[in-house]
């Protein structure tokens, strides 16, 4: 067992050697930031991380992308992390409840729902109410997961009841069912629709405004590089962050 741990340690060390920070000014030694971020942030945060590294010599940013609830569980179990970016406020709340967060979480982006259909929209879906039609095979997220909770909110506020063929536990499963043609339409976040590219056709609908999903970010109490972690959070909140997130379909949180 010890040998395995040593091996993992070795691999980590190798990862750290990756960027050749020929140490510059005194005090600014090499820092490795560990960022736990929701899976839906994979592409945007990877890009932001690279930009942050290029602007801050000697700093390398490592990511752990997973479902927000998984990430919270890992943080609760003592995984060393500097920053946590959650896909919903509920999971961030768990972290703050356990005093694992330094200061207050800040909302940095918001995501809304969008309808996705097969390219060309063969069933001619135009809005949310079309999804309730009998001949539409609809796939949505299960109410237990964030995108499903948002779907439920829209259903309640609009008074339109959907009868989905399946309630998936992940957005990727919803998209897969639409792109493979099994389903006529699905409800996913704008960012997921943007990420799917030409494989789907995206349709915005006004009712989506009733269920805006806010993404909070926070420095974690256990961070050994609190200042650098705060600088990363500020970077995400700043113009570069807004630009990268905006391109991916995120809107600014109010």
């Amino acid at each position, binding site marked *: 067992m010890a040998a395995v741990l040593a091996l993992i340690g070795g691999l980590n060390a190798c990862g750290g050697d990756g960027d050749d920070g020929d140490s510059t000014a005194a005090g600014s030694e090499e820092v490795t930031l560990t960022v736990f971020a929701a899976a839906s942030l994979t592409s945007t945060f990877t890009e932001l991380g690279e930009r942050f590294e290029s602007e801050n010599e000697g700093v390398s940013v490592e990511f752990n992308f997973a479902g927000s*609830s998984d990430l919270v569980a890992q943080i609760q179990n003592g995984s060393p992390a500097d920053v946590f970016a959650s896909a919903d406020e509920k999971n961030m709340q768990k972290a703050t409840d356990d005093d694992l967060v330094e200061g207050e979480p800040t909302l940095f982006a918001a995501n809304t729902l969008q309808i996705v259909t097969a390219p060309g929209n063969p069933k001619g879906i135009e809005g949310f109410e079309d999804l309730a039609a009998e001949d539409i095979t609809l796939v949505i997220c299960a109410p*237990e*997961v964030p995108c499903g909770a948002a779907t439920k909110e829209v259903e309640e506020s609009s008074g339109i009841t959907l009868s989905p063929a*399946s309630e998936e*536990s992940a957005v990727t499963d919803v998209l897969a*069912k639409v792109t493979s043609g*099994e389903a006529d339409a699905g409800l996913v976040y704008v960012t997921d629709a943007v990420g799917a590219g030409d494989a789907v056709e995206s349709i915005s609908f006004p009712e989506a405004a009733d269920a805006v999903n806010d993404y909070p970010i926070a420095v974690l109490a256990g961070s050994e590089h609190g200042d650098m972690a705060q600088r990363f959070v500020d970077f995400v909140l700043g113009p570069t962050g807004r630009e990268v997130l905006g391109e991916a379909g995120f809107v600014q949180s109010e």
Partner: protein
Amino acid sequence: MRSSQYSGLPAWVYVPAAAGAAFVLLPLLALMARVDWSQFISLITSESSVAALRLSLVTASISTVACVVLGVPMAVVLARTRFAGQSVLRSLVLLPMVLPPVVGGIALLYTFGRRGLLGEHLEVVGLQIAFSTVAVVIAQTFVSLPFLVVSLEGTLRTAGRRYDIVAATLGAKPTTVLRRVTLPLVLPGLASGAILAFARALGEFGATITFAGSLQGVTRTLPLEIYLQREVDPDAAVALSLVLVVVAVLVIGLVRGSRGQM
């Protein structure tokens, strides 16, 4: 006092053997330790849990029957005949056993899905398999079938053809031989194969979530329910996991029981 036979094993063998046993048992103990016993009954009797358990038991049972109907003839043909390409065919047929279930799910999607090889034609006659309980059964049968075939083929090979030949020379037609001699003789192997298939079907997750979708009472089996509950209610997920473990332990006990009769 029971008399015991000299094992002839070197003493050190017990160390890795015990470590292996602990490796398997510890996670189960950890799972049990995490169970919120005060809530246990209410967690596993919630509407969604009961629906998932029911669906799992029903679909796994139907899949097991499907495995027997398809797998027994397969095993008999593989064990009793020789033809060109047989070993290749055997490997291919057993593939679902080693394939990641999600790959199986994708393959099924392109077979029975709306735009799939067969699904396209089924769609024309008004049959839609995706998102139905039938899809769950198909996914479970796909991954479980090899377990029954492997188990039964091995038993058939061990049993040999001698009794079959005797039966034939006594005037029994091939169907009679199969029904009255071949199958009764391998019944223990068939039973343990069927139980293994049932257990595999009960635990099936990857192919189901990829191919069948997830809807309470229709396609959301117990493993899918556990996966979903993890998101919101880890306690419920743990409780349901324990239910699945208990069912699995019962199944293993049945296998051992049926093997013991041999």
